[in-house]
């Protein structure tokens, strides 16, 4: 059936040279060592160096900068008067100071509004209708030099009071 069966038998009679007894001992020693020093064969040693991951550090710094900017923008944002269903505002360009990212836009999407009825806020005699709305705002920064953008989305809750008229 097989033309090569005789040749295969001859080949199987050839015995490979046995490895040295030290090989098993060396493997045993290597397995007992911690993995960091597992360069088992002398000529295969590979030095391990600690490398700074500059990308991670850069991303971390960018995220920290974004959070500081976000806090700054929130503190200086004027109070909103009426709920907006969906709007996109282009923020006026801010003079780039030391930060490389400049604000490029704000998107505000109102996804839920609830009328909470008429109230008399404080000691006012004027009845006001209280409207609570849930929005999702997206702030965007752009680096004019590189074109890189950073976008942060966060949920907000707004309560607005509307004077009741026509009575």
């Amino acid at each position, binding site marked *: 059936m097989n033309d090569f069966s005789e040749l295969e038998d001859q*080949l199987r009679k050839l*015995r*490979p*040279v046995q490895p*040295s007894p030290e090989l098993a001992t060396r493997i045993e020693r290597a*397995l007992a060592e911690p993995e960091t020093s597992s360069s088992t064969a002398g*000529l*295969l040693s590979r030095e391990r160096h600690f490398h700074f991951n500059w990308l991670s550090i850069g991303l971390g710094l960018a995220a920290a900068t974004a959070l500081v900017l976000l806090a700054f923008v929130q503190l200086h944002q004027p109070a909103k008067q009426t709920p907006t269903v969906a709007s996109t505002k282009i923020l006026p360009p801010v003079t780039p100071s030391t930060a490389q990212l400049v604000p490029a836009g704000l998107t505000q999407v109102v996804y839920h509004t609830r009328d909470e009825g008429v109230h008399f806020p404080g000691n006012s005699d004027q009845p006001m209708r209280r409207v609570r709305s849930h929005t999702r705002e997206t702030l965007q920064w752009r680096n004019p030099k590189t074109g890189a953008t950073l976008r942060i989305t966060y949920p907000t809750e707004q309560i607005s009071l509307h004077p009741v008229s026509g009575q």
Partner: protein
Amino acid sequence: MQNVATDENWKTCFSQLAPGLVLFARQWTRSAADAEDVVQEAFVKFWRRNHDIANRGLLYATVRSVALDLLRRDSRRARREATAFSDADQSVQPAFEVNDDSQRALVAALDLLPDEQREVLVMKIWNDLTFAEIGSALEISQNTAASRYRYALAALKKHLPST
């Protein structure tokens, strides 16, 4: 079988596989000592990663990868020492235990085989791998492995008129 670095099972596995593994590694190394280094590195790596020892295709692929890695890293030194090695080292450190002239002729014929045929032959004859396992180790199809094996035998037969 799960491999555990502290487990003594590796000794049993290794004692059965070692001669074939070293022979397999010899194809890419200049000496038996280098082949043993390759096998050591590959086996430790394989065992530490808790690969199933029954996955022989992966074990041989690891040996091959470590050997080729060594070959690439050491290529400059290899070129420098190539002449000395071919003249002396190979004859001093044979890969087989040769008993007579016919076996000597067979070993000489094996050395004439192209690398891709010889590695399949070594895995099949002296390591008892299936063509599926060989295909897995070399990242070739089972049929390609079988073809290379047949070509290797045919080439050997051509070099050995007495068979």
